[in-house]
């Protein structure tokens, strides 16, 4: 029982940065923008968040710094891919190269410093209920924030008019434009939201996970977030399942080793990626309404006037 609880807690923590970054990317992709620069936005977010928290001693200010840095990075992307109609794939990759370098420059002065990590929630009595108490009321704030964010995004996309318009931009920008919606402006907001989420996801690492900054500490999590949006077939609910599944595979693989079960770890590690491909194929085959890729994903749009 205790081990189960511990594993669930580890999975929650390991999945949170993935879920945060993927939620942001999902919104951007739903508006029709493929931003491959998630890793770059995350690592800059991590560096700035740590810097902010270290200078002020406040986790919240740190998190805000990370989000702000993510937004600035995403604006750079938006200026290129939306403002100048540059290919999104190339821009996203350039953003990652740029971000990795920039984070190193920013973070160089914080290397070797350490902060007090984000506190875990503790509600007297409630948090002490076995199993449920710890899981539901005993993690750090980011974990619950990420889940709240998914719910909010779901509500926005499916229950609000603005969300409908955003999806329309992603599915057919020409029609959305013809109906009089400012496609580029909407996409810019979506990209900025993606940047804020990626920045926050990056911030989670030095603020809560391992409370120090080291260059390259995102270690490819931004790319996994991209995979997750596909795995989830662009549905917020499935994103949660995907992120936790991915986190679970990572953690269980470690536990399997600790317990002396000898499966080559490479096979376990490759499962999520293979699963993503298979899921994508199955979903594309099934073509159930609205669950496939946004039709205009990754395409350039320049409004006719």
């Amino acid at each position, binding site marked *: 029982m205790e081990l189960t609880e511990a594993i669930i807690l580890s999975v929650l923590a390991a999945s949170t940065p993935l879920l945060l970054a993927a939620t942001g990317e999902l919104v951007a992709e739903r508006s029709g923008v493929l931003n*491959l620069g998630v890793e770059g936005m995350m690592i800059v977010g991590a560096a700035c968040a740590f810097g902010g928290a270290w200078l002020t001693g406040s986790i919240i200010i740190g998190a805000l710094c990370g989000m702000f840095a993510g937004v600035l990075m995403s604006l750079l992307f938006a200026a290129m891919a939306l403002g*100048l109609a540059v290919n999104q794939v190339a821009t996203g*990759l350039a953003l990652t190269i*740029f971000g990795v*370098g920039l984070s190193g420059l920013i973070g*160089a002065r914080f290397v070797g410093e350490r902060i007090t990590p984000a506190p875990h929630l503790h509600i007297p009595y409630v948090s002490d209920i076995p199993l449920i108490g710890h899981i539901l009321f005993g993690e750090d704030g980011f974990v619950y924030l990420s889940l709240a964010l998914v719910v909010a995004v779901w509500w926005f996309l499916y229950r609000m008019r603005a969300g409908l318009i955003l999806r329309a931009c992603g599915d057919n920008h020409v029609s959305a434009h013809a109906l009089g919606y400012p496609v580029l402006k909407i996409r810019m907001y979506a990209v900025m939201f993606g940047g804020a989420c990626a920045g926050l996801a990056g911030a989670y690492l030095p603020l809560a996970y391992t409370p120090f900054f080291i260059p390259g500490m995102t270690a490819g999590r931004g790319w996994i977030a991209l*995979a997750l949006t596909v795995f989830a077939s662009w549905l917020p609910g499935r994103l949660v399942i995907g992120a936790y599944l991915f986190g679970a595979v990572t953690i269980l693989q470690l536990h399997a080793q600790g317990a002396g079960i000898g499966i080559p770890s490479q096979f376990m590690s*490759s499962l999520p990626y293979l699963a993503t491909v298979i899921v*994508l194929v199955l979903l*594309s085959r099934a073509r159930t309404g609205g669950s496939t890729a946004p039709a205009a994903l990754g395409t350039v749009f320049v409004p006719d006037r």
Partner: protein
Amino acid sequence: MQLILEKRAERSKTVALASPLIAIGLTIVTMTILFMVLGKNPISALYVYFIVPLADGYSLQEIAVKATPLVMIAIGLSLCYLANAWNIGAEGQFLMGAVAGSWIAVKTQGTGAGHWVLPAMLLLGALAGALYALIPAICKVRFGASEILTSLMLVYVVDLLLDYLVRGPWRDPQGFNFPTTAEFDPVATVPTLIEGGRLHLGSILALVVVAAGAVLLGKTIKGFEIRVVGAAPRAARFGGFNANQLILLTFAISGALSGLAGIIEVAGPVGHLQPGISPGYGFTAIIVAFLGRLNPIGILIAGLFLALTFIGGEQAQITMKIPLDVTKVFQGILLFYVLACDSLILYRFRIVSSSPQVARGAH
């Protein structure tokens, strides 16, 4: 007043020529500011980045060695992108080619096999790359699954396969358990061209590939089909071109070239199979393809230019103690400017009145 982007009626030849120069000019201005902020002399820094590597034969060779895989992969990718097939998994196809080709090298090790080994390795590498690239292409054509994402996912799968092989079955028995195969036999090694240098046969092959790409696109019907399918899908349908067939074809070519680049890199500069044989060639090549405007000659220039910044970055670390991160920022800024300026070949800015009525009236 509002600034808007609008499509030009035709490509601007003037901008096409001026764009790289403007981009480099803007990069130099930005970097000058950055170097001054960092307290480095901007002029000597730029000199070290751009001129020093061009000043001697050794560095020129190294630029060619670094550019070889980038150019080879980017040529294949440009075909895909022209045909609107979004292969971004070249890194995986590169690794697959490297793994498959190495299989022959590992199995023939020390058997005294003849000179057929290297050609067989190159062939198998190209074939494996092509087959691996066909997985996302088939998923796209048969099931409509986004090739952008499936090709990206498959990168990680083959990366882990390579990792497994060199840590397990293919590990060098004399290698103290380190994750690498034994050094390939001479018959399994790509020959170098200049005594004492690293320039190898692969660089010549890359030039052949560039020429072949130029001929394919400029002189053949298939090349014409590729361009039409990408630029005007509707027209292509009326013309009876089979877009799906072209997706399969361009993916296969692109995969083959990536796989070939992979096995050449392993059998050439590296000399054995190990994890980390690619410092992200497959991804950098995407940028090279776009920097070269999806044009074979452009790609050759772009590949050499990007290679120059890598070599220059090392020079800057050595002679001026400029951290590697600055080089990455520099590359990022350069890419942004080039991509942005190139956009103005197809589009132009126009100032319009922000009042919607007037805008409509002017329409």
